[in-house]
């Protein structure tokens, strides 16, 4: 398959999957005795209808962009980091300690918290990375185990170490150390801007620098990279640390900008959601960010939809899950030799049969 057609397929398959998933979602809505068209209308209004709603959508997209970029970066270098959630949580724990215990306020507090969060996420990502390159461990299992450990550690923080009052939660990040809003009155903070910038940086690094090329080469073919003299293990470990750091920064940003305190359920599910978005986005950082935006819109909108039509918000989770199921299957389908032959016959082209 030549490059332009491959790009076309890369866009066509996810978009078709999204449409198909929404269609199935609408069928489910119909089964729940709601009018699917009305429900989808409220979904869209809820996500984009007012400035406030749009702000909520962007706010919800921010952490997802971070975990999705975390997954995306790691997979590009051939390491399957499923520990985005743990790294995200460690970042937020670090930021929580900084903002509540270090006695800093204002801009310095924000900067130190974000940096500490990034470092914490990177270190948490380094553990499975080290085990992978030194002990040849299955990085998926290890990184998932560290998700559970991080979640439990966060539990210790909000029920014990930094607990405030009788409710199991930490104190709120002081007003003056919270991430500022871009436009007063709308919830979106600079965290969203940071997310976009990180995404663009990752895109630039992966596709426009020679080091990024080497990272991708390791992801595509380890043996060839080794014979080319690339330090494959070092790149893999770096990929783990960098992707962990991205997730950690996201966690710190989420704490300082949106949630302000650690509480039960914080960041729950963000890790796997990030994996899904990276895969739907075909591991392209920019496409991945759009996918994250789409899913954030789906979630924000589904709240309005539930209020207006009674369709439960979990329909949006089903739609999201179906998108990944269809996209991955669809991409596999397009890579089958039979498919190329079929398309070739369909368009009457000869070159397709040579694939």
């Amino acid at each position, binding site marked *: 398959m030549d490059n332009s057609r491959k790009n076309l397929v890369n866009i066509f398959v996810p978009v078709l999957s999204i449409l198909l998933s929404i269609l199935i979602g609408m069928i489910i809505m119909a089964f*729940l005795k709601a009018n699917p068209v009305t429900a989808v209308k409220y979904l869209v209004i809820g996500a984009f209808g007012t400035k406030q709603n749009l702000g909520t959508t962007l706010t919800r997209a921010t952490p997802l962009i971070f975990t999705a970029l975390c997954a995306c970066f790691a997979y590009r270098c051939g390491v*399957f980091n*499923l520990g985005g959630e743990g790294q995200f949580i460690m970042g937020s724990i670090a930021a929580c300690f900084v903002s509540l215990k270090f006695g800093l306020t204002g801009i310095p507090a924000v900067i130190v918290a974000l940096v500490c969060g990034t470092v914490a996420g990177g270190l948490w990502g380094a553990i499975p990375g080290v*085990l992978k390159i030194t*002990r*040849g*461990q*299955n990085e*998926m*299992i*290890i990184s*998932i*185990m*560290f998700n*559970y*450990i991080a979640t*439990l*550690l966060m*539990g*210790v923080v909000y*029920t*014990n170490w930094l607990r405030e009052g009788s409710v199991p939660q930490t104190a709120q990040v002081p007003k003056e150390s919270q991430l500022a809003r871009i436009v007063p009155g709308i919830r979106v903070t600079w965290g969203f801007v940071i997310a976009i910038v990180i995404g663009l940086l990752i895109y630039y690094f992966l596709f426009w620098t020679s080091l990024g090329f080497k990272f991708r080469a390791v992801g595509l073919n380890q043996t060839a990279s080794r014979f080319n003299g690339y330090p494959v293990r070092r790149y893999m470990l770096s990929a783990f640390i960098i992707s962990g750091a991205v997730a950690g920064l996201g966690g710190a940003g989420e704490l300082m900008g949106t949630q302000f305190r650690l509480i039960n359920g914080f960041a729950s599910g963000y890790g*796997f*959601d990030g*994996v*899904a978005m990276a*895969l739907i986005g075909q591991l392209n950082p920019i496409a991945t960010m759009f996918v994250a935006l789409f899913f954030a819109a789906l979630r924000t909108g589904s709240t309005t939809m539930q209020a207006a039509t009674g369709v*439960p918000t*979990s*329909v949006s*989770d*089903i739609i*999201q*899950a*179906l998108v*990944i*199921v269809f996209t*991955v*299957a669809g*991409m*596999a*389908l397009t*890579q*089958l*030799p039979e498919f190329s032959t079929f398309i070739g016959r369909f368009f009457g082209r000869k070159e397709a049969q040579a694939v």
Partner: protein
Amino acid sequence: MSFVSNLLLASVRMAVPLLLIALGELYSERAGMVNIGLEGLAAIGSLVGFLTCFISGSTWVGILCGALVGIAVNMIYAFATVTLCANHTVYGMAINILAPALASFIYRIFFGSGSDLSQITLMKTINIPILKDIPIIGPLLFSQTPMVYLAFLLVILTGFFFTKTQAGLNYRAVGENPKAAATLGINVIRTKYLACVICGALSGIGGAYLTTCYSNTYTEGNISGRGFIALAAVIFGRWSGGGILAACLFFGFCDALQIRLQVASVGIPYQFFQMIPYVATVIALTVIGSGKSGPKAAGKPYRKEER
């Protein structure tokens, strides 16, 4: 004494769901299919097992339906990975996202979002006469729910199947070298689908065990990593029935110990004890290293036409 024997009793009980799921994965990997979607399969099995048991009042119906839904969901995985040659890991993740989403959706539809938990009656333990009176191991092994007996029986049958029968050797050949297997007249595709049926059924049963034999209610996230720990148990147990049994008993012991330490200790945050199974998994995998003793073609797509 009663602390120790209770602990061991709980270890066996906690090991069984892991054991069922891990055996499912063993059947899958022996046919060359690395399925990391176990967590999701167990989640949907757990919910459907609970729901059908709640409606019918029979734990056996719950177990059966858990198995059926596990098979149904795993057929999506089978179609994508066997027929479409999708990446096993990626598709396993897709199942891990789809199945819990389905489970929580069905739960919401059926029980609403109220916080009061519906409960069911757990499966009764069955005492095996005479044997249960053996000191220590009697109550441990012969005064359990039938599911425990079935799980242990399955370990023996699995070991026998893979090492002593022609069918088992043929089955393993698919996981080691599918092309060679195909030239010997073994139907590779059918074996792989069969593997997915077994894996889906056992994972679903493993999930259903948690709601019908262990805790009498369903809470979201009740699998809490058992699917992945089972995956580790297969590696830790070196792809053999007996090894997996030992690994699962070890992880079951960690789980049982964790609960008892939580109750027994004062002053230490309970979450530290809850970490024990996960930390144990990491340590176990790190200590045992990565022997390359798994099926050789595990995780690789099989294309008939390719040479």
